[in-house]
């Protein structure tokens, strides 16, 4: 089975500024791919290249096995949903949905059939006669999705479709998009800078930075085995703890050089263990404390600096032998500034990065 989308050696420059370079990407049939990255890293640019809204500088784009590098957006077999909805304000919802189809001279009964289906899937039947001005943000975004839906295409492109909505609506629509994907089984490429959206929706996530894809993998893989320090720090909230230090590959021990030293036995190295300066990453939620620390392979004592009770859990800033460490405790545990508490963790859940290349060891 061919891939749904293949991007080969893509390069895009605006004059002297190169935004994307040597980008290769393959998206399988029916896959939900999320492009995740900080602002300005080129996510929208990549999406616009796939849609044909930007002319690429070099490289090829294939959709459903066809080379569409020079094809018009409307003839690439894609549908697109925009952050600002981009609905035509003076047309009714129905007008918005049918405008492109009428223009492409799709037969009337076929249009009616597609509208009916889209309206049913998205539950916008009661809105069809209204204008976008009279809709709420969530309803507008549903109509915008509907406009892509009626095009009856294989590939859907979403550019931060939920970022103009408030938190609750966002969560609701996120679930709906996921359900939509399960019903339609289309290929979807979804741009966001919200990691929750990325983790919950994606079959695979592509983490982008500076116009390049840093890691392309299943969400759990990205969370558990980030390929470099940037990805490790980008994913996860609160962010991963990083410690600077020296790794002894033979003895499999880590030493900050400032009084904290422990074994990393159990860590799965990518290659053969090496010796040298490294970054060690430890997720706050992987640190156990109190009585749960007892059965952890690595144990130490932490001095509590600051406490942030959040209800369900409590975030603790602490110092371990001069090393700053943030971790989470059960919200019911009593903890105070100045307390000394035992903590522990499993080296299998650590991440080790080379100090100079910042790549995973």
């Amino acid at each position, binding site marked *: 089975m061919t891939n749904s989308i293949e991007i080969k050696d893509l390069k895009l420059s605006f004059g002297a500024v190169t935004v994307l370079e040597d980008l290769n990407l393959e998206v399988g049939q029916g896959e939900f791919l999320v492009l995740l990255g900080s602002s300005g890293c080129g996510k929208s640019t990549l999406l616009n290249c796939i849609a044909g809204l930007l*002319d*690429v*500088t*070099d*490289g*090829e784009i294939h959709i459903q096995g066809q*080379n*569409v*590098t*020079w*094809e018009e957006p409307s003839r690439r077999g894609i549908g697109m949903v925009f952050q600002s909805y981009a609905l035509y304000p003076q047309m009714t919802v129905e007008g918005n949905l049918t405008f492109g189809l009428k223009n492409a001279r799709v037969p009337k009964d076929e249009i009616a059939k597609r509208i009916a289906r889209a309206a049913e899937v998205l539950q916008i039947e009661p809105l069809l006669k209204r204008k976008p001005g009279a809709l709420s943000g969530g309803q507008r975004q549903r109509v915008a999705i509907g406009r892509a839906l009626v095009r009856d295409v294989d590939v859907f492109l979403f550019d931060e479709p939920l970022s103009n909505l408030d938190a609750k609506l966002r969560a609701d629509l996120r679930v709906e998009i996921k359900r939509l994907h399960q019903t339609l089984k289309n290929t979807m490429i979804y741009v966001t800078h919200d990691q929750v959206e990325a983790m919950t929706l994606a079959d695979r996530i592509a983490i982008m930075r500076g116009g390049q894809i840093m890691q392309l993998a299943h969400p759990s893989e990205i969370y558990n085995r980030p390929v470099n320090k940037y990805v490790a720090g980008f994913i996860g909230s609160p962010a991963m703890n990083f410690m600077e230090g020296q790794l002894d590959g033979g003895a499999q021990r880590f030493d900050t050089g400032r009084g904290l030293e422990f074994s990393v036995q159990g860590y799965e190295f990518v290659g053969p263990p090496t010796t040298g300066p490294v970054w060690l990453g430890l997720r706050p939620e992987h640190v156990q404390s109190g009585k749960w620390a007892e059965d952890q392979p690595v144990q130490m004592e932490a001095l509590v600096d600051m406490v942030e009770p959040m209800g369900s859990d409590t975030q603790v800033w602490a110092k371990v032998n001069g090393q700053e460490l943030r971790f989470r405790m059960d919200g019911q545990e009593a903890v105070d500034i100045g307390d000394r508490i035992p903590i522990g963790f499993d080296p299998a859940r650590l991440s080790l990065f080379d100090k100079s290349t910042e790549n995973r060891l």
Partner: protein
Amino acid sequence: MTAAVTTPRGARPKNPFAPRNIMLYGALIIFSIYYLLPLYVMLVTSLKDMAEIRVGNIFSPPVEITFQPWVKAWSEACTGINCDGLSRGFGNSVRILIPSLILSVSVAALTGYVLACWRFRGSEVFFGILLLGAFIPYQVLLYPLVIILREMGLFGSLWGLVLVHTVFAMPINVLLFRNYFVALPEELFKAARVDGAGFWGIFFRIVIPMSLPIFVVSGIIQVTGIWNDFLFGVVYTRPENYPMTVQLNNIVNSVQGVKEYNVNMAATMLTGLVPLAVYFFSGRLFVRGIAAGAVKG
């Protein structure tokens, strides 16, 4: 087989001579000619002598460049009563422009400041009346203003005209200033008042230093507006005080004597130079200015 050509790669091939581009740039160039033609004709005509004009066509460049028409237009052309050229009109226009500019911009800025920051009961009503004034055809107010100026003993003098310019400048410029001042952060005024600054203190030390752009915009509207005015000049001044536009019209459209087209065009160019200079030097600000002034005409 030419299979190699059929795998698209890289940028879509662009044809600079695609019909679309030819139409686009073709239209732009044709319109540019329409807009540039008068400037060109004006310039070449003013540099020819009359003999050449009579035999040649108006679009051909001068065979022999002469600045005589410019000299004549400036210092010798006759307006019917006297023959000292446009220089007198230029002087009058400058003497009208400077006080009108200062007075109209200051009054408008101060009024805008009152309306934005020191509203009192009824101030909005007066503002509404003022804005309505922008839509009253000048002809309705011409005679009442004659009477007012006559009562004040200013009719026919330069100062009368200055006052008229100030009056008719108020609606647009007050609106500009008011809208600009309203958008300044309100905390600033509160802080200044807490610090003990009063009406004038806030105006001079806080508002004015923060409002240079709007002063420039209003200044541009006023310079071109006052310089280009014709109607008020004819109505409210005596012939010896006529501004440049009125004098220009008298020179060109005077029925006596032989028509000297080259002198006429030199005079026309001379009159257009000031606003053109403002336009070319202030560029984007000019666009902003007229767009802002135009928001309600």
